[in-house]
Structures are given as C-alpha cells and as structure tokens.
C-alpha cells in the first residue's frame, strides 16, 4: 500500500473558527470587476486622440457602455485571486475521462508566440506566409502518416466542428453520387458522445441508435440489421467511451462499406493508439483528431480546441476550403471551390482554422518523434490499466474482463446500500485534493465513473491518487456517509445550487437599483 500524501499529524486538532473577514488564509474573496470602484478608470496609457468622431454624426455612441476599468496592479490581483480558485493539470492529476488532461509543455506556448506565427494576418499575401503554410503542410504530413489516411482538412475549430466537417464530406460524397436522396440515416452507438448524434442531426440526418453488447462494444449483429441502402454513415468512437477497443472494428467497417455507407470514426481517443494503430488500416473514411487531447494543446478553461479531420481517398475531394498545396514556387493556399477543388463542400470558418493550435501540436509531435508518440499510447494505456487493477477490488469495474485502453471505467454497483451516489463520491474527492473523474458518462453504465490518467502522470502521482481513492472507497463502505453527503467542505465554495441557476437564470451582472451606473 502506498501512503504517499501530505504528511499530517493524524491526531492534530483541526477545528477551525470562522475568520472575521470571511477570507481563508491565502484564499481571498474576490468581487466582480463590476463591483470595483473602477468606473472611469483605465489601466492602459494611450495618447490623446485628436479627433472626436464628429464626422460620424449620429452614428456615434453617446450613452454609457457600462465597462469598469482597473489599473494594472488591480488587474493582476483580480485575476491571480481568481486563478487560485481553479484546479489545473499543473496542480495535480486531472483524471477526467474522455477529456484527456495531460501535461501542457511550455515549449509549445513559446513556439506559438513566435511573432512569425502569432503576428501574421490570415489574408497577408501568400509570399509573406510561406513558413506558416510550411507548418500547416508539415502538420498535415504527420497527421496523415500517423493515421494512414491520404488527406486532411485542418480548418475545423474543435472536435465537434470536426465531426461536422466529416459528416458534411460524407453528405457531399453521397450527393455527388446521387445517393443522398435515399441515404438519410446515420447509425450511432448508444455509448457515443452527445456531439455525435447532435452533429448527425445538425447535418440533416435521422439518428438511429445501435445497441451495445454486454462487454461494452458495438453490437455487430444489431449494426448489421440496421445497415441498408438508406444509411449514409456510421459513427463509431474507437477506442470507445467505455475505454475499450472495438474488437470487431474490421468487421464493422467491412459491413459498413458493403452497405454503401461511410465509416466515421470519432477520434477523441486517438491518444490511446497513436503510433501503434493507423485508423486508415481499420477502414475509416473520416476521423477528427482533437489536437488538444492527443497532442497536448492546452484546454484553457474549456477551449479553444482544434479538430482537424483526416479523410479517405473517397472523401478527400470533398474536403472544405482552404487547404495548402506545394508546388515549384513554394506553398500556396486553395481558398475557393474551383478547379481541382470544385467538389469541396464549402468553407467551415472565415480563415485557416486554429493556427495557434497547429503550432503547439507540431511542437509536441516533433518533441516526441514517431517513437515517442508510440510510447505515449503505451504509457497512457499502462497507466489506465494500473488504476483499474489497483482499484478493481474495492470498486466495481464496468467491464472487468480484459484490458481497458487509456481510461478505466467503473460503475456504482459497489456503492449499493451505502446511500452514497457517484456525485457524492466525486465531491468528496475534491476534499482530498483531486479533481473528480468524469461522472455519469457514458450513459450506458449506471452511475459511471470514468478515470483517464494520461501518459504524463508518474507512478508516484498515480499511487497518491490510488491511495486517496482507496481510503475514500473504504470510508464509503464503512458507512461514513457524512463525509460524502455535504462534500466538498474544503473547496473555495461548498456544493453549488445548479437547479436554482437553471430555474431563474442570472447570466450577467446588473447595477443594483437606485445606482447611477449604466449596465445596459
């Protein structure tokens, strides 16, 4: 048993009297900027303008806008104080399953900030952005090689945007062959991310669910029974959201292609197989790659992401503009649907996509090299299986037989009779200094707890996490309900009332009545 953790005296008296100010030591309360005294203040020194905008006549904005200003030191303090109320991967393991919170190398940040990348305009003459196009071309080469696919569309701005891109390419291919009128269904397993059915519906398809087997995989018989000449595509996540590799993937792709449909693979979990398995070898026609997940671009509190899509030869002609080509005169950009690009299905965003993420991802790829990326997948899978093995006796793995891939999935069977829910357990993890795992997803597993350690956790950190999880599990089983029901007790805030927020939404600050401050 590993007992690595914070050294504390077990018998210390820990009763804490309330503080006089409400502050908790270094943790300061921090009001909103709108509650500061910054009306009329600014933290930026700018020269005095010589014009007053009067040439614009009645187009000029006269009323107060309602924007407080802060001096530079006040700004720093405001945001540093806020930052101290956040968990982050740089603080500790962040075991959210299906979200892949791995180390974010600072070299990536440094590279993305080179003025030659960050300070260039999307519509500069092509002759002045040759290095940027070279970077996009190099990144494309890596993505195509790692996936074994002949083409890539870089521009989607997030994983879900990539799904949209892939399904629109599939739709365009069916339109080109005249089959779109007939093929109006997309098959999606019950365990899929919510974005999969949402995307299929968004592109105008009817979503048909495919059942799952008892061992957590796509039910091939059910899939086969639903495949027909009215199906446009299937969407399968592989490794899937139960953290398992779809063993029958070759059969799934064969059946799909036989039915004249395309195989869309949700590549959110590519980090589990990168360097060991090429999706192209599995018969995939389109797959988005969340650069932030597999290639370590930071999640930044929820975004921005980037979701390039690799495409099979059949779908490549339909890729959206723009894309990079290389000729005798260097690199150029195909920006329109004409000539060789006449079949492109359109354009997904104003410019070239998430250049800042391309830089970070390429920096990560080059740092690892092809050999290192293979090690990435192996360590991610090893870490997840280690957690599954070390917690499997106390908690109930959803699929105990055989290895998992990069994430370990438990259900709430082991909490039966304790009056403690998955949510309670997760909140108690906060008190022990950990970010909770993903809860209640995938939906096909009751009270799901999905843990993804990633490859950048050391054995020591894993052991620290396992130690805490075991203590918590034992406490739950021992009937220590109070530890869980009101948790967290040691976070910046106690349990938040989410129902109240949704029932009567307050989505912005407004000035208290009777004050003079314009808010709208």
């Amino acid at each position, binding site marked *: 048993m590993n007992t690595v953790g914070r050294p504390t005296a077990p018998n210390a008296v820990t009763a804490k009297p309330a503080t006089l100010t409400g502050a908790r030591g270094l943790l300061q309360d921090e009001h909103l900027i709108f509650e500061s005294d910054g009306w009329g203040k600014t933290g930026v020194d700018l020269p005095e303008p010589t014009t007053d905008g009067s040439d614009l006549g009645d187009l000029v904005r006269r009323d107060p806008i309602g924007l407080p200003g802060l001096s530079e030191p006040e700004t720093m303090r405001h945001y540093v104080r806020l930052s101290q109320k956040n968990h982050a991967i740089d603080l500790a393991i962040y075991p959210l399953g299906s979200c892949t919170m791995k180390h974010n190398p600072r070299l990536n940040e440094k590279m993305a900030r080179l003025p030659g990348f960050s300070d260039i305009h999307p519509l500069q003459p092509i002759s002045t952005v040759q290095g940027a196009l070279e970077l996009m071309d190099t990144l494309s080469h890596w993505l195509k090689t790692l996936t074994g696919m002949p083409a890539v569309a870089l521009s989607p701005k997030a994983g879900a945007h990539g799904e949209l891109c892939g399904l629109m390419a599939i739709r365009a291919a069916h339109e080109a062959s005249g089959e779109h009128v007939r093929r109006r269904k997309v098959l999606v397993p019950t365990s899929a991310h919510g*974005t999969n059915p949402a995307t299929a519906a968004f592109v105008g398809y009817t979503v048909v669910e495919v059942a799952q087997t008892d061992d957590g995989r796509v039910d091939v018989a059910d899939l086969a029974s639903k495949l027909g000449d009215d199906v446009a595509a299937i969407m399968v996540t592989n490794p899937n959201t139960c953290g398992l590799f779809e063993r029958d993937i070759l059969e799934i792709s064969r059946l799909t292609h036989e039915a004249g449909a395309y195989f869309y693979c949700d590549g959110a979990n590519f980090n589990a197989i990168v360097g060991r398995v090429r999706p192209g070898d599995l018969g995939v026609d389109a797959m988005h790659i969340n650069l932030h997940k597999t290639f370590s671009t930071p999640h930044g509190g929820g975004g921005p992401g980037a979701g390039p899509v690799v495409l099979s030869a059949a779908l490549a002609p339909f890729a959206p503009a723009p894309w990079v080509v290389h000729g005798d005169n260097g690199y150029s950009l195909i920006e329109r649907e004409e000539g060789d690009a006449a079949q492109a299905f359109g354009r997904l965003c104003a410019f070239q996509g998430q250049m800042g993420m391309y830089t970070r991802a390429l920096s990560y790829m080059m740092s690892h090299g*092809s050999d290192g990326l293979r090690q990435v997948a192996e360590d991610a899978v090893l870490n997840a299986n280690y957690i599954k093995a070390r917690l499997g006796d106390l908690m109930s793995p959803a699929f105990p037989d055989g290895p998992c891939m990069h994430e370990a999935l438990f259900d709430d069977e082991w909490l039966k009779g304790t009056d403690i829910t998955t949510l309670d357990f997760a909140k108690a993890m906060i008190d022990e200094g950990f970010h909770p795992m993903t809860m209640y997803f995938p939906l096909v597993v009751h009270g799901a707890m999905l843990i993804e350690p990633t490859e950048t956790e050391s054995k020591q950190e894993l052991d620290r996490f396992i130690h805490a999880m075991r203590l918590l599990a034992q406490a739950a089983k021992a009937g220590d309900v109070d530890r869980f029901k009101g948790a967290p007790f040691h976070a910046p805030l106690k349990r938040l009332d989410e129902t109240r927020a949704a029932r009567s939404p307050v989505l912005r600050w407004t000035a208290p009545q009777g004050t003079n401050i314009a808010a709208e």
Partner: protein
Amino acid sequence: MRYLPLTPDDRTAMLSAIGVKSIDDLFVDVPGPAQRDGFVDLPRVAGEMEVERALSKMAGRNVAAGSVPFFCGAGAYKHHVPATVDHVIQRSEFLTSYTPYQPEIAQGTLQYLYEFQTQVANLTGMPVANASLYDGSTAMAEGVLMATRVTRRNKAIISGGVHPHYVRATETVVHAVGVETQALTAAIDAEAAVIDAIDKDTACVVVQTPNVFGTATDVTKIAEAAHAAGALLIVVVTEAVSMGLLKSPGEMGADIVAAEGQSIGNALNYGGPYVGLFATRDKLVRQMPGRLTGETVDADGERGFVLTLSTREQHIRRDKATSNICTNSGLCTLAFTIHMSLLGETGLRKLALLNHEKALATRDALAAIPGVEILTPRFFNEFAVRLPKNAAEVVSTLADHHVLAGVPYSRLAPDAGMDDVLLVAATETTMDVDIQILAKSLTKVLGA
C-alpha cells in the same frame, strides 16, 4: 521523451501489478493486421533545442505584421495587447484547466466567464451574451440557425456588405439543414437594400456594420422593417473595438449579435484561435447556442457561478440539441476580458477614437494620390479605395517592398468584379511614418 515520467522499472512493476507480461498484452483487442511497428518516414524524438530551431526557422519565413508598415483588416485586426494579458492567461490555473464541470473548484474560470458575458452584453448593447463561440463567422452561422428556430421560417437575407468568407461559412452549414440564404450583390454602402428582399418566409436579415468595405451604418430602419415582417435582425461585427465609438447593435434594434472578439486581447494568429461573441434578447436565451455561466449560491448561501441552461445542449438532448457545439474559446475569452478590464470604458473609447483617427489620416494620405478614389463614405478604422490597377497585383508588388498595404477585395470574392478595390485598415498601432511609407510606395507603384 521528457514529458513521459515512467521509468522502465516503473513500467515493469506496473505490468506486474496488472498481471500481464508485456505491454502488448494490453493491446490484445486490436486486430493483428492493424498493429503497426512504427513509422519510418517520421523523425524520432527531438530535444527542446532542436524543436525550437526547426520551428523558429519556419516562423522566420513569415513577415510579422509588427515588422512592416501594415494595413490589413477584413475581419482580423492588429492591435496592441498589453503585456499583462499574455502573462495572466499563461498562469497554470487558467491555461491548464478544463471546462468548469466541477464548479466548486473552477470558480476562477466561471467568474471570468460571467464577467465576460456581462462585458459582451454591455458592449453589444444586448441583454444577454453567451460564454463565446469559435469565431465571428461560425457565430453568424449559429445566429442564422437560431433565427430559423425562433421564427419557424426558413430563409436568411444577407446584405452585400457582409464579409464573403462569413457568408460562405454560414451557407455551408445552414444549407445542410435546408435553410435557404439569399446573399445580395456586394456593394460598398447598400445595407438598406435588404429591406426590399424581406418577405413572409424571411427568418432573419443579416447585416454587418462596419461592413466589409468599412462602411458604418445605422441599421435602426432595417431592424424596424425586419420586425414589422416578423423577422429577426442579426448584426455582424468583425471589429469589436468599433463598438467603443459607434452606436451599439442593441441600440439599433438587433435581435442577435454575432461578432468577432479577436481585436480585444487576442493576437492575429494567422486566423485562429479567435473568439466569437454572441448576444441576444432575454426571451431568446433558451434558443441560444453555446455555453452559459449563471449566478447561484452554495450550501452556505455564498454567491458562486455554474455552467447553466445545459438542457439545450448536446450532452443532454443529443440529437435534439440546440447545436452540436460543446466548447467555447475559453482562454480567448479570458484574454478578451482582461484586456477589457484594463481598458475600461475610458480606455476603450480612447482606443476606438485613436483607431478612427489613424484611419482618417491614412485616408487623407491616400486620397492625395492621383488615381486613387476613396469609396467608403463613413467608416471606423477601415475603408475601401479604388486603384487604377489590379489591387492584388499592387499588394503583391508592395509586399516585395516590405509594405503590407491591405487586402484586395478579390482575395475574398474573385467573382465580384471588384478587382481594383483595396481594403485598407489602420489601428492604434499604425504610426505616422507607416502612413507616409504606404502613400509613398503606392504612389511609386501606381506611377510606374
């Protein structure tokens, strides 16, 4: 492999704890034919120094905006970003955090998103804003889809002043669900032309102000006409700083505002990541796409913030969701909100005036060149000129002389018949000497 902490001994011990002999035993579910040994045509592990050298070399082949006289706009603008902004967004607790699914330990993110929503609402003059979308162009597409949901109508009328790439990005997405678009012919100053196109099927009219030619328009009358026909008005703004000087979309009657927020706090980045601002009226909030942060209390009654109204979203409603979006531009919203907090209302208004002032000075310098015609009647920081030569060729020649003179309109819309039109933008970063160099070199190129 400096990012991988496991040692060979760790791996051996862990395999043993799992009860398998080798790592291959953990990949048994992968069919044999799909297992690969490695990739010979990709480089192997590289140290920090090597990566830095390779990428710096690529960066060096680009001409950075700050290194030359620079006048490109058309939806992306070079502004000065205070050093504080980039410092704060690189703090670990912001940079390396995730979507605030556990609000008790994500109040930092949730509070800044709430502040961002308030700033965007006030800036656009609208009652509510979301926590951002991918960028301005995707926000416009989402706006059109939202308008069709709200009105249960199926057609969008798009002004000829809307950025052609925004139009194309919108058409691409909305046509897939059967929404019709009617994009009017490109014109420098013809926003009001959309009024004549409104009919009983019109879900929304989309106008941009300042438009892609820089023309600033009071769209109040367009709003009235749209509302009279039961349609919504979507106002697109590609230069967020303009709202510091010009009447807000809300003041002019917008129902939905889809704007690009890159100008505040975010670098040019060759087109991304940017930050889509999206605001609307209170009664439409449940049809709004994207994330929302709301105020609530914790178990002790302390104020706190959570992600809310998620019942519109894909993880709850799946194929019935309002949109398939499951992220926002988190870190870009943070950059926006920090820069905006530094500026405050005083700073923003001053910044906007400085932009306007530099653009006026640039216009005056170009107007003095024989053969150059100023086309845009009223503008904020960008305007269109007609040149006596092909604008793309002029821009290319000037680029060879280290001047980035602007964006030829033909780059955005080659078929519009405006090959001689050049879009010129100036910002607070434009120096008087830059304007002189532009005027001098343009005179030279045109005079040849």
